[in-house]
Every structure is written in C-alpha cells, then in structure tokens.
C-alpha cells in the first residue's frame, strides 16, 4: 500500500482535516423526526451528540429501528436533520441545500454499500471515475490515479470488466477504490460485508483496516459484532439515542493485519 495512492497530492487525509486526533465530525443534539400521520410521529434520532476524530475507525451498531440507518443517511449527507447541527470537516452541513450536499458527498465522503452499488453499464475503471466526473475533473488526467487505486484493491488486471463479470468480493473492492478516488474526509461503509461470505468478507475488512492504518477515517455501520471488532470504537444506538460508546483500544499502527 502506498500512502501516496490514497491522497491525490501526496497529502494524507489528516492534513486536510488538521492534525490527527482533531475532530472531523461533530454532531450536536441531532434530531430527525418523520411525520407519518397527524398522531404518528417517529423520532428516528432523538438528540444525538457524537464527535469523530480524524483517523479513527468507528463502528455504529444497533438493532433495526434504533436510528442506525437514519444516522447513516445524515452522516452521509443524503438526508438533513430536523434539528441539531452536523459539522463535517468544520463545515455545518445540516442546513445545506440539495446541490451543496451533493457537492459535499462527492468531495468529502466515500461510500461503501452492502450491495456494492456499482453502475452496471460502466467498466471497473469507469465506476471508479464516477465521483471525479461529478466534480468536473478531467478523467484523462486522473486516469493513472484511478488505475493505481484499482491496483491497490487488487483489480489492476480487470479495469475493463463489467460489474456483472466480477465476484461479490471483487465488486466490493471496486466500490472501495471508488470511495477513495476523491480522497474523502471519511469513508462511510454500510454493512460492507453483508452480502459476502465470511472469507471474502474478512478480505474486504482487511482492506478497510489497512486504509484506516494509512490514516483514513472509517465509519462502519453494521449489526455484526465480528465486523465491529475491527473498529477501535463502537457506538451502540437504541431508540434514536446513543446507548453505549466504547473506545476499544487506542488507534495504533500496530493493529494486526490478517
């Protein structure tokens, strides 16, 4: 793994967000309510405070209905909170317009989904390039970097393959490469191993762990304890609130690989 491949100009993510340990996500009294009917108001998030430091590896856990998914959507800037504030990299994104949020998603967040979510008609390389395209970047200029990222996840020889020609593990690795292409502040992984068997799931988690070791901030949403074991910090949610917040171990570069 070359750290240079992870960031566009050789900078590390922490350089963007300040020195390691500084918070890149700060959530204050976050609320999200869904009005389904006059009498039926669901408080999906009911006053959440959370701070995530740069370079940390955090797992968000919780049973269904705990507000975990809502948390993920708001963290991923796909949704706006009803009340409260959300600072991402020092910027308040909780009241941003739709277009501004799109921009934030494209520049600051790397998504890894449970079902990979690659675009079927595009090749591996083109899938990796999608976030760059929406940033208005010249795809030719960044071609080498995209190839490098594909190599990083072990798919350097499958650049022109279509997602349907790849196994689940390979598709998820393409998604990881795609999440890195914009050198995001945070990688948001939603059950990244949910659709994979335990062996390939472990491989994917290895890659994510190594990314964290290289300085990337990882936010992992899962309900699988084994997956959460990889994280340094586990946040358990219940009824729209944070139930437990356990710092398992200090961030250490000596974390076991494989």
């Amino acid at each position, binding site marked *: 793994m070359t750290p240079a491949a992870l960031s566009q100009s050789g900078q590390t993510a922490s350089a963007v967000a300040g020195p390691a340990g500084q918070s890149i996500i700060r959530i204050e009294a976050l609320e999200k309510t869904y009005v389904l009917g006059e009498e039926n108001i669901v408080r999906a998030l009911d006053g959440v405070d959370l701070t995530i430091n740069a370079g940390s590896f955090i797992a968000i856990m919780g049973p269904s209905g705990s507000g975990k998914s809502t948390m993920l959507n708001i963290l991923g800037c796909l949704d706006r909170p009803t009340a409260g504030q959300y600072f991402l990299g020092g910027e308040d994104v909780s009241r941003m317009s739709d277009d501004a949020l*799109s921009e934030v*998603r494209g*520049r600051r967040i790397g998504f890894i989904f449970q079902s990979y979510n690659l675009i079927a008609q595009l090749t591996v390389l083109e899938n990796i390039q999608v*976030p760059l395209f*929406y940033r*208005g970047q010249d795809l030719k200029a960044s071609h080498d970097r995209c190839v490098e990222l594909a190599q990083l996840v072990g798919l350097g020889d499958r650049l022109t393959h279509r997602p349907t020609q790849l196994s689940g593990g390979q598709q998820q690795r393409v998604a990881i490469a795609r999440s890195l292409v914009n050198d995001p502040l945070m990688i948001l992984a939603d059950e990244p191993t949910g659709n994979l068997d335990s062996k390939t799931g472990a491989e994917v988690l290895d890659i994510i762990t190594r990314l964290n070791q290289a300085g990337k901030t990882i936010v992992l949403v899962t309900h699988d304890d084994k997956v959460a074991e990889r994280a340094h910090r586990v946040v358990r949610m219940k009824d729209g609130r944070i139930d437990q917040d356990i710092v398992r171990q200090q961030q250490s570069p000596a974390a076991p690989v494989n």
Partner: protein
Amino acid sequence: MIPYQFMITVRLGIKSLKLHKLRSVLTMLGIIFGVCSVIAMLAIGEGASYEAQEAIKRLGSNNILIRSLKPAEQTRQQSSGPGRGSQLKYGLTYDDAGRLLGTIPGVARVLPMRLIRENVRFQRNEIPCQVVGTLPFYTEVAGAAVVRGRFLAYYDEEHMENVCVITTGLARRLFPYQDPLKHAVKIDAFYYQVVGIVQERSQPEQRSQAGKMEGQPLDNNVYIPLNTSRTRFGEVLIRRSAGSFEAEEVQLHQVTVQMRDLPAVETADPQIKTMLNRFHDQNDYEIIVPLQLLRQAEQTKRIFNIVLGSIAAISLLVGGIGIMNIMLATVTERTREIGIRRALGAKKADITMQFLVETVVLAVGGGLIGVSVGIITPVLVSHLTTMKTIVTLWSVLLAFGISGAVGIIFGLYPAKAAANLDPIEALRHE
C-alpha cells in the same frame, strides 16, 4: 470542462441506449416515421405545387384563355334540330374574337384557334393528332419556339396554303428517318407540306376536350393556317357512332387573349364575361385566367403544406409520447443507478442532464435516420411514379429541428422525475 463533461454524458447516453438495442430502435421508429413523413410529404407537396405552377405559368400569366364548351345535356335538348342525328351549334365565334379585340381595354392580341382531332399520316405512320388552325402570331402568344424552318406566315393564311408546322415530338414519331421539312403529311384527304418544327412551351389545348384526350401523347400538334382549317374541315364537324351521328358546329375552340400587362388581366376577366354573355344565351364557354389559377395554386399549396405538416406533426407527437413513455420506464428501472450517482456527488441538474441527453440522443438519432429515409423516399416516389418531388432544405432542417425539440420536450419530464427522486429511497430501490 463543461463541453468535456457533456461529451461524456452523451457517450454515457449512447452506452445506456445500447444496453437495450431493440427497445431503443423501436422507440426511435416513432421519430423516424415522423421525420420521414414530414420531409417526404413536404417534398411531394412541393413537387405537386411546383408542377401546377409551372403548368399555369406555361399558359402565360398575361394571357386569358377562353374555351368553347359543349353545353350541358338539358340545354342541348332544346336546341337540337330535327332529324336522326342532331346538329349542335355552340362555342366561340369569329365575331367573338373580333369583339374581344375591339371592346375589351388592355387587349394586346387575340389569338383564335380551331382544334380538330384527326389522324396525321406519313407513309405508313399514322398518329392521332390535334390539328390546330391558328394565326402566325401563335408562337408569341403561346410561347412556342421554332426549332427548324419557320412558323405559319400571313401569306399562308391569305392563300389558304396547305402547309403545316409540327411539334418536335410528332416530328420524331412521324419521321423517324426522314427530314420532315422535305415531306408532306396527309391529314384527312389533303396533303400539307411541313414548313417548320416548333417546341411547345405548353399544350394549352390538352384540356379543351378533356376525356377524349386521355391517353394521347400531349406533344402531337399540327399547326395549319386558320383559313385552311376552315375551308378544309368546314365549320361542322361530324362524329359518327354506331347507328347515329352527331354533328357539331363550332367556329373557334379556343381564343387566347393576350393582355398588355398584369393589372389588365385582373380587370379584363369580368368584362370579357359580361361581353360574351350578351351574345351567348347558353353557357358554352369557359374563361381560364392563369394568373388567378397561379394565385389559387399558391393558396392551395399553403393549405396543403399546413395539412401535411399537421399530419406529420401528429406522427412526431406520437413518437415523442413513445419516447417519454420509454424514458419513464427507464427511469424507474434505473432508480438504483440514480441513487448511486446522487450518493457519489451528482446534483439534480446532473441527473436531469443525463436523462435529457439520453432522450435527445434517441430523438436526434431517430431524426438523422428519418432525414436520410425522408430524402430517399421522395426520390423513390419520383422514380417509380411520374410524381415530381422536391426536397427543400428548410423541410429537412424543420424535421430535424422538430425531432430535437421533441427529444427535449418529451425528455424533460422523465429527466426531472429522475432528478427529483429521493437519493435514500433510490438507493434502497431493488
């Protein structure tokens, strides 16, 4: 940067359309037919009106044509004389011609004509022709050009010479190997020396006895001096049919009045009608004003174009609805992709653009194919039939422009619908 991004969007659109080739082609068909019909219909319409206008122009816009008409059946009963056969007297007279020249202001010349159907023979060749008895200035009024020899002269007229001038087509058919100017043709019982060959600008006589003329070559005219025609054929023409015969007395079959200028043409028409009605108690003539016909033809063309245009527009509309339908289905089908793109940083405008471009590619692609088919179709039509077609540049541009507009108009709604999808819902979509 923007054109570059647009290029990629276009490429992406083509790629997406290629994923469902059959569906894309079927969708395009609507536009192809629409564009093709716009161009082909306008080409046929344009060709038809061009032909009509040319035909009218050939009559001469300064001319007013007056033709003898056989009166309607009922009026004929009253005027029929006794006997087994009936003799019918109708039509224009020499006096009419004289009065036209004398009383109507602005008349430059009055050209009388007698038109008789007769077989013309040379050696073994026998061709049914129209024998036109007329005056020497026929060429100037009717715009015929003398190709060889000369036209009829006043000397021929005065002396009732047995001379004739034939049209180029007739010369070709009647004299395949000989020089016509050195020979005489036989019409009825007499021989006429060929003195000249003319190239007709038009066949104004071709309508004079409509019905009987059908199927005849149009270019078979023989011109003889009016006086010769009068003496050789007489004023009474007898047509024999099984068991009875019909005799008609017609002095002149047609009179072409050449006016000095265009304004005179307008005013002369009612004056001629008034003057002639005083001497004709039955409706045995018709007045044809090419200038009016030309105006009518232009008016007709305008209406024709509107009708054709609307038909074509409707087919384009149907094509557009087809496109919209497919694009709405495509948006639903690709909801997940839209969600992914939104998550990866696509703005609403990016999604709108993507689907709009896809629709426009579909429509313009169909438009391009439609334009080529639409240009080929009229060529085929004129090749297979005698119809003249003219493909005008503006009709091609119009059709192509409309197809692009259809793409944008009918693509906007599906594209907006795609952009307005909630990214969270879209990502969850199966």
